[in-house]
């Protein structure tokens, strides 16, 4: 589970709970100018995720950590596919973040309105 908020022109993502251990990262901060957009996307969990390093992937249970796919680095922290959102970034360590959030529509609206 992740919490997203916007503060001082930055998008701040905090990883909560046990996933913090598996994802090996508890906080990601991105300037809003490097955020391209956010989307509610429960279907993304069924797609191939690429190669994992480091983190964990127990199919059907939890996806957390850094994955490499088509030359891109993607950060995953999803347990409940129904609550997955995708945040697309530019010029950042990660090409995109795939996160589980409490209220996907509210999180996506928050980010899209800030851009």
């Amino acid at each position, binding site marked *: 589970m992740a919490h997203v908020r916007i503060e001082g022109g930055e998008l701040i993502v905090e990883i909560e709970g046990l996933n913090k251990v598996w994802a090996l990262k508890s906080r990601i901060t991105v300037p809003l100018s490097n955020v*391209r*957009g956010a989307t509610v*996307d429960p*279907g993304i969990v069924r797609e191939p995720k690429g190669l994992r390093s480091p983190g964990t992937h127990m199919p059907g249970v939890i996806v957390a950590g850094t994955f490499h*796919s*088509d030359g891109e680095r993607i950060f995953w922290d999803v347990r409940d596919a129904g609550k997955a959102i995708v945040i697309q970034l530019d010029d950042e360590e990660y090409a995109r973040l795939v996160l589980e959030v409490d209220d996907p529509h509210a999180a996506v609206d928050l980010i*899209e309105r800030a851009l």
Partner: protein
Amino acid sequence: MAYGGDMGRPRGFDEDEAVRAAVTLFGRQSFAGTSVDDLVSHLGVHRGSLYKTFGSKRGLYLAALRQHVDRDVTAAAEVFAAATDVDEAVRRITDAGPDLGLLLLALVERAPVDPEVAAETTRALARLRDARGELDRALGLLLRTRATGSAPEFVGE
């Protein structure tokens, strides 16, 4: 076919064609009713390319709406200007296109909550109004036509 590294790597799909397919899909299913799964399967675009190119579903929606206004609404405005009256214009549009589904849905679904969508729908309505007055009557006829599937035969007027 091998493309070297990241440099000048082609997107691997026709962006204009993909946006055109998105116009049809959003115009049929609305923004909320169209999932990224729907877009990936109808546009022939990988999820990663979709996000890399448009940033988000909303980014693609805005691109689709802009193309819709520039292409379909402009074409509809020409029909409006050429027809003898609004009823005839709506009948011609219903029979032969262009499909204005995305504009009609955007007006009720997204324009009230998304200022960038509202700017595009305002641009679209101005274009239709410039072609011919009686815009409200035209919109009413278009909506009723969408509801019933055929141009209303002067019902109740």
